[in-house]
């Protein structure tokens, strides 16, 4: 007990600062346990007394989990170490995912006086982010900023991708980033030894370790580059697995020469448009030519020209023709409506099978058998009938029911088999007659109605006209989903009508769109509409 004398109130034990406090925040299943074991072995193997704890329990099941390690150079006696991280008292915080870094910051585990934050910038999306009908992704940039403010030192890059490229898992790249950070007094070789001793997937682990080590130590420009880059919305999401090979640029339009001549003519027309409009019209054009044909693209550009004329008349030039630009975007999406023909076309396209094989990491000599999940209904069947026939059938409820009995069943189609491929290929072939089909009629009528309303608002309220165009965003999906989208569209358009004439009409319409995207059933939208009615009708009463 006499050693206690060495501790005088004015001066806390200097050895306290030698205690390294390290916390790991991970998502259940990310292998935080493996990383913890490595760190323990590493420290014990290098003359440190180590204590590690974790909170397992059901949190392991995809929930947020936390592991905690404390270490101190070994002396004769056992030190007394804490079993849980404390606010403002963590030296190294390893976050195995971007939002977990945010959680660590929120919990006060990251402080400017002492904490080195090592975080992977990739995202593992929470369910709340996924189920929003619109854009529900959390803002990684906000976390990045907060990290800059709260940490003593920040090391953030995509450690998940590094691990995957190395054929390993993130624990290995996190271990490498820890080594690269130089926050622990151990040589990187000691880390490698630890991995070798653990004996599972050593080769891949070491590869991921070294890549991450280099990145963290700043020798490798690639991942550290992410530090400066503004991250994509929602941060670094799972990479699109689309094969990216040099001589294929995704947007490029290909085809027989005679058709390519028509294409050149269209491109020339786009070039003539005002810069901001041209950029979007170019994308729209590619989309629609790919969707149907050159003539369809021309029709699109004709509409753009018409819109641009009225935009100019409404003084759009001063506003970079925001109206036409917005229209160019949503008109392209509207004209490329999702129907069976398009689905069949995309499913039977050249290069798809190669893409899938690549996505599935199919090795040489393995067969890739592709099964499509279809579930058509009478509505779909009618939509691809010629206009007259479609209307005639629609008029007869009994006939529709009968038709539904025939077509309405789940179909599993093996598109790697010739017979089933042919069936889809034939449906895709109907594309040629698309303009004569009932669905096309409906879509075009809908587009006209929508644009007319927007154009009507153009002279009086430019911003509201633009927001009106954006309501088109609500229409997406197939069958029920599509119907739900349509009804939301109509309700928002009705709401927009009510506020027309007010100074804040544009803001209200934008709000309505946001509300419509807030939940599937449209509860938020109903609320917003209620509010609008309350003050619009109150005004009239």
């Amino acid at each position, binding site marked *: 007990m006499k050693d206690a004398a060495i501790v005088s109130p*004015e001066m806390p034990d200097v050895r306290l600062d030698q205690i390294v406090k390290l916390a790991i925040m991970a998502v259940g299943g990310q292998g935080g346990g493996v990383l913890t074991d490595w760190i323990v072995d590493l420290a014990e193997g290098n003359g440190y007394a180590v204590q590690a704890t974790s909170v397992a329990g059901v949190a392991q099941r995809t929930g947020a989990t936390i592991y905690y390690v404390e270490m101190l150079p070994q002396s004769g006696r056992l030190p007394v170490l804490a079993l849980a991280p404390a606010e403002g008292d963590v030296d190294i915080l390893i976050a195995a995912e971007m939002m977990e870094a945010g959680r660590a910051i929120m919990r006060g585990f990251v402080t400017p006086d002492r904490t080195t934050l090592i975080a992977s910038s990739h995202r593992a999306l929470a369910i709340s982010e996924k189920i929003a009908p619109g854009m529900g992704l959390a803002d990684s940039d906000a976390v990045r900023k907060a990290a800059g403010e709260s940490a003593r030192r920040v090391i953030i890059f995509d450690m998940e991708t590094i691990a995957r490229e190395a054929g390993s898992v993130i624990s290995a790249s996190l271990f490498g980033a820890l080594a690269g950070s130089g926050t622990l007094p151990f040589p990187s070789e000691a880390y490698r030894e630890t991995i070798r001793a653990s004996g599972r997937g050593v080769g891949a682990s070491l590869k991921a370790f070294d890549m991450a080590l280099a990145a963290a130590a700043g020798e490798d420009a690639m991942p550290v580059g992410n530090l400066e880059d503004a991250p994509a919305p929602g941060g670094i999401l799972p990479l699109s697995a689309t094969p990216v090979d040099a001589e294929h640029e995704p947007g490029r339009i290909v085809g027989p020469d005679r058709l390519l001549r028509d294409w050149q003519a269209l491109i020339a027309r786009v070039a003539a448009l005002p810069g901001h409009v041209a950029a979007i019209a170019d994308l729209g054009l590619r989309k629609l030519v790919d969707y149907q044909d050159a003539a369809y693209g021309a029709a699109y550009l004709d509409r753009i020209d018409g819109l641009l004329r009225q935009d100019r008349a409404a003084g759009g030039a001063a506003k970079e023709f925001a109206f036409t630009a917005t229209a160019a975007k949503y008109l392209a999406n509207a004209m490329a409506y999702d129907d069976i023909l398009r689905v069949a076309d995309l499913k039977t396209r050249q290069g798809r099978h190669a893409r899938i094989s690549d996505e599935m990491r199919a090795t040489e000599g393995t067969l890739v058998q592709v099964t499509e999940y279809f579930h058509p209904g009478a509505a779909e069947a009618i939509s691809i009938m010629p206009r007259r026939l479609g209307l005639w059938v629609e008029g007869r409820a009994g006939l529709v029911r009968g038709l539904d009995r025939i077509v309405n069943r789940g179909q599993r189609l093996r598109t790697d088999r010739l017979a089933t491929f042919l069936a889809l290929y034939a449906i895709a072939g109907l594309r040629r007659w698309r303009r004569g089909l009932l669905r096309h009629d409906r879509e075009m009528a809908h587009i006209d109605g929508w644009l007319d309303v927007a154009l009507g608002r153009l002279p009086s309220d430019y911003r509201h006209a633009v927001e009106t165009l954006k309501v088109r965003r609500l229409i997406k999906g197939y069958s029920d989903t599509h119907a739900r989208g349509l009804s939301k569209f109509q309700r928002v358009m009705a709401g927009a009508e009510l506020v027309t004439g007010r100074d804040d009409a544009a803001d209200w319409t934008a709000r309505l769109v946001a509300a419509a995207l807030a939940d599937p059933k449209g509860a938020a939208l109903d609320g917003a509409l209620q509010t609008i009615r309350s003050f619009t009708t109150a005004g009239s009463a």
Partner: protein
Amino acid sequence: MAERSFKKEVEQLRIGAGDIFRGEGILAITKALLENGVGYVGGYQGAPISHLMDVLADAEELMAELGIRFEANASEAAAAAMLAASVHYPIRGAVTFKSTVGTNVASDALANLASGGVTGGALIIVGEDYGEGSSIMQERSHAFAMKSQIWLLDPRPNLPSITDAVRHGFALSEASNTPVMLQVRIRCCHVHGAFTARDNQRPPLTVRDALSNPRRDTNRIVLPPASFRHEQEKIHTRWPAAVDYITTHGLNEVFGPDEARVGIVLQGGMYNAVIRALQRLGLADVYGDTDVPLYCLNVTYPLVDAEFLAFCGGKDAVLIVEEGQPDYIEQALRAVLNKAGHGIKVSGKGVLPMAGEYTGQVMLDGIESFLRQYADDMLADRARAPNRPGPVPDLTRVVPGRPPGFCTGCPERPIFAAMKLVEEELGPHQISADIGCHLFSIMPPFELGGTTMGYGLGPASNAAFDGGGERRPISIMGDGGFWHNGLSSSIGNAVFNKSDGVTIIVDNYYSAATGGQDILSSRAGNPTKQTQNPISRALKGVGVGWVRQVDRTYDVSRMRKVLKEALTTDHAGPKVIVASSECMLNRERREKPLLAQAIKDGRRVARPKFGVDEEICTGDHACMRLSGCPSLTLKMPDDALRDDPVAHIDQTCVGCGNCGEVADAAVLCPSFYQADLVHNPSRFEIGNARWQRRAIDWLQNRRAGKRLARETVR
């Protein structure tokens, strides 16, 4: 076979005297049991002591060598009842379970055990599931110790202390003929540390030997008049004996200087947190040598009045650090002081919060404000005017919550997807949930289930609705809960009362939530247990007339059909659906090596995986609202004209098929596809695929030659 194997660690259990043991707390406890000649062990899994059960199971061979009987009990009640072997026989027994939920279940047996008392040491190792990471209601085991008069050990959370606690626990139990409860907190169970081992001991009397010469003593049986004598014994014999053992063996520890104006009384489990706070205040060094005297209660029940009064001697004030509520210890100690007419000032709940975990910050603030009040001069200037970290950036509106949920490919997901679809058709129902992974159904995206009353009590908690009504009540229960208690308390109850309700039994082949331990209905063979007892047979056995067995839960359309039938059939009496598919976590662990081997051996293996055609997905996320699978996620489309992220299936997909099934059953969209990777295909397969591929290529080229199109499709 459990989720985590300790086969490697278990080898360490053989080391002898003087060797250094390194590992987790639970492993150390197991070693300590062997060192102290335990004769039989049992328990029921559940965090934080699930791994203790797994360790014991993996150590069965070693225990057999030592003549120790291991039992994976059917429930905590069964485990506690097993301690009956120590009533008449001088055999040491230990059981373990999660507390307080496990202790709730066990309390009938525990009360009877405590009343009659024990001859051989009886140790109940409870994993105190309190604070961060806990999955249960926040209560204390302390209450059970007090009500049945079972001694409660709460050792300092380091391996030497826990293992000592095991040793003294047995001795204390024998010295006072009272069962002893050893409480280990979540982090203590998983703490990695080291201690010096002793030799393993064969039990002096094994349970086998005991069977050769049975004993009985009517005075130990809980029935009048003995039961009244038991109560007197508890007070007049056993309690004093316990206090005597605790003092003579110094189970409670005192640290720090003998002379001081203030002191701290703490539960052993709080020791490290208290020391860390004192370290941060400059009042303790790294080895825990402290300027503030500490009275560390490694035994929190019974309390030793004399020790406590001696500690208070010459002090102005004492702080009582007791985590959780009610504040039993503080109340008791205040009473002691009051009876003794002692004038010392007492702080406790007040400077420290009445409810909630004592985290580092809470402890620091509490002890600091205590010292400021009674010993301000001890605080260094830094601590007196501490530079608190600045305000934490507010990310509450940015960072999404991440509650636990169904794993990738979980077979329970499609069950609830089907349920959601049925509700869209027939409207919402009264749904009672149960304990187990399936309880995640209460959270998004499913949000099904309104109550959970206990393990195997899902259907029982719908009993009030058994009479039926416009819509039938639905209850959910796991296979774990079914065998734990559900067969009688829930199913038997429903049959006897002619319930009109519908019950879904989620059969995933294991006690999955607790770590994938085997149970009666597990499909796998188990060398030491009898598995493969179908739930449906048990149901018919207790008289359920309407039973439907679904052998592939991923068939969402079928699940929906069966569920709808159950809700609409005119059959009288309970309707029970057994929805069976193997826990994907365990299945993957079981199959992965086998498949890898098969592929290496050149055998044909087809592995399904799922994908999404990005351009066909319209980004409505309807599929997400019926799934929530971790591998079904989002990405921004490469099409700059689109506003919303689209569905994407990442590399972790295990090809369970839920995506496609849901897209089909809910008539969502055709963007999902299944890709079966066929390894080592037969020659015929290759040829067959090749000519069809050629034909398809020809068709595609033909069309590509007649149209304009983007070079790549997504």
